[in-house]
């Protein structure tokens, strides 16, 4: 079942086109990545899904509901973590969530139990009585996720969740997102840091200037754009470029003094190793997931060339 569905969704600010003709389907239980550089329309899309911005044309359905007509029902079931999430600095973490629970209309006892549960889960229970103004960016971000969970959402929409976090905090935060998926929550996340989030996304949509340019799993996109969904790094003797290139399924080989980068449509590690050993020595072999940054750069270079 499609949890989020849009048809021809378009938003213009005067003459600026923020999002144009977006057709999207996000399935139940998946982590979907809305990726693209700054200003490509990710946040605008998210705001339209929550009924916080009115589309110029087209329509959106979230859990089967129209966010413009029934925003309260949508917002009761969809958790949202805005980019640059802010809290009331003069209130404690607990008080901030208490306010949210009141806005949600949760009864007193239930609210207290849920607040404790989500604060513990985000590792913030020890600092619950500290003023949020003293929180680090990472703690704020986790408090934001705690607030999302307070709702017991069916869908979580996270806008630039790793922005401003150091690499370690970002990795931990991505782990927390995987935890949401394990719980059965559908996750829609946006980011301009393609390589950073590509690993947690089941499927991604690549935005370019308000249009959804590419849609699919990372492997599918790499296959389509780079001609190979698998990137294999080989360290071996010199002069093997041609031999590697003759193997079936190899799309491209780049060589540099005994280091080879092979793009292939399937996992060719054993074949490559055999060729290398037959003709000399093999020093190293590694399989890398292709980087979405590369897919993006390559695709739009091609598009620009074609135009």
């Amino acid at each position, binding site marked *: 079942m499609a949890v989020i569905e849009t048809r021809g969704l378009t938003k213009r600010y005067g003459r600026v086109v923020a999002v144009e003709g977006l057709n999207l389907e996000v399935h139940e239980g998946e982590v979907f990545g809305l990726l693209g550089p700054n200003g490509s329309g990710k946040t605008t899309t998210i705001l339209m899904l929550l009924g916080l911005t009115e589309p110029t044309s087209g329509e959106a359905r979230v859990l089967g509901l129209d966010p413009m007509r029934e925003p309260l029902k949508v917002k009761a079931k969809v958790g949202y973590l805005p980019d*640059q999430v802010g809290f009331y600095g*003069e209130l404690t973490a607990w008080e901030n969530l208490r306010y949210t629970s009141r806005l949600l209309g949760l009864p007193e006892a239930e609210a207290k139990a849920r607040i404790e549960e989500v604060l513990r889960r985000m590792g913030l229970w020890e600092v619950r009585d500290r003023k949020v103004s003293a929180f680090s960016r990472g703690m704020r971000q986790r408090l934001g996720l705690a607030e999302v969970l307070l709702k017991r959402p069916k869908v979580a929409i996270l806008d630039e969740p790793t922005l401003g976090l150091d690499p370690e905090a970002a990795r931990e935060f991505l782990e927390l997102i995987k935890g949401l998926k394990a719980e059965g929550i559908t996750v829609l996340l946006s980011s301009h840091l393609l390589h950073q989030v590509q690993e947690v996304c089941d499927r991604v949509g690549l935005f370019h200037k308000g249009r959804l340019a590419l849609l699919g799993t990372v492997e599918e996109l790499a296959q389509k754009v780079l001609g190979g969904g698998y990137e294999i790094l080989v360290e071996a003797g010199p002069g093997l470029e041609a031999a590697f290139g003759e193997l079936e399924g190899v799309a491209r080989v780049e060589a540099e003094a005994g280091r080879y980068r092979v793009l292939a449509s399937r996992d060719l590690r054993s074949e490559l190793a055999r060729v290398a050993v037959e003709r000399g020595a093999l020093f190293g072999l590694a399989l890398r997931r292709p980087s979405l940054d590369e897919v993006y750069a390559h695709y739009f270079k091609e598009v620009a060339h074609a135009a």
Partner: protein
Amino acid sequence: MRREGSPWTGLWAVFFKEMADHLTGLRMRILEGLILLSALAAVYTGTQTLRQTVGEDPYLYLKLLTTAQDPLPSFVGFLSFFVPLAAIALAFDAVNGEYARGTLSRILSQPIYRDALLFGKFLAGLGTLAVLLLALFLLVVGLGLFTLGVPPGGEEMARAFLFLLATLAYAGVWLALGLLFSVLFRQPATAALAAIGVWLFFAVFFPILTDLAASALLLQADPFDPESQLRQANLALWISRLSPNTLYAETLTAVLNPAVRSLGPILITQLEGAVLGTPLPLGQSLLLVWPQLTGLFALFILLFTLAYVAFQRQEVRA
């Protein structure tokens, strides 16, 4: 397109949160201190002057509120000066403050409409001012009891209560103005300055302008035709009533001074049969200020509606 669900969902959550913020905030402490000090000073001078006349005046407490002694203004004078400032101080960063802290999109992604947020904030400001005014008023009555030694009469209390209500309506106007500016200007400092500018205009420049207009109008009148003079005087009065300060001042005059029978020029023929100086009953005084009260209320509704419409059209992201 029709929206489903009540616009009031979450109103009370917003109200109580904002009210708690106001009552515990530093800003409120400062205001309380200021108002308290000036009120005490005013009441002190009031009681000093009134001690001599205790027992002769049936409306001693109303006098207490309105007696001024140079260089200090009366309690009422102080209030009409401070209430707009207090209201602006409570509202100038209501909406732009949420943008600045990055909390607006988070709050609006909860199942509430913007209506509830704006209205809750307004009600909380009004509630806070009501608490403040009531506390001040009780203090004044307590001090009066202490120094004058006579309890206030029933009608006196009713009039004082009406005075509080009128003050609250007046505060509502400035609160709505502060709220409007907090929607229109992204910088809280800009909003505060703009609101104080409007207040200064009505407190200082508007009376000068209306005086000028009044004399200009009178010059135009035929000096030998009293009817045309009366017409011009009335016109000048109506111009001065464009200010909330005039409306409030007129309301207070009639409510706190039962002897006042008219808020404009009257002809000697209209006074035929009237016993001058006798107090009007409360109902008559209320009737007298009804248009002024309605005017204040209409002004507040207008400002709030403007704020509401502007807020509805705004983008949620900063």
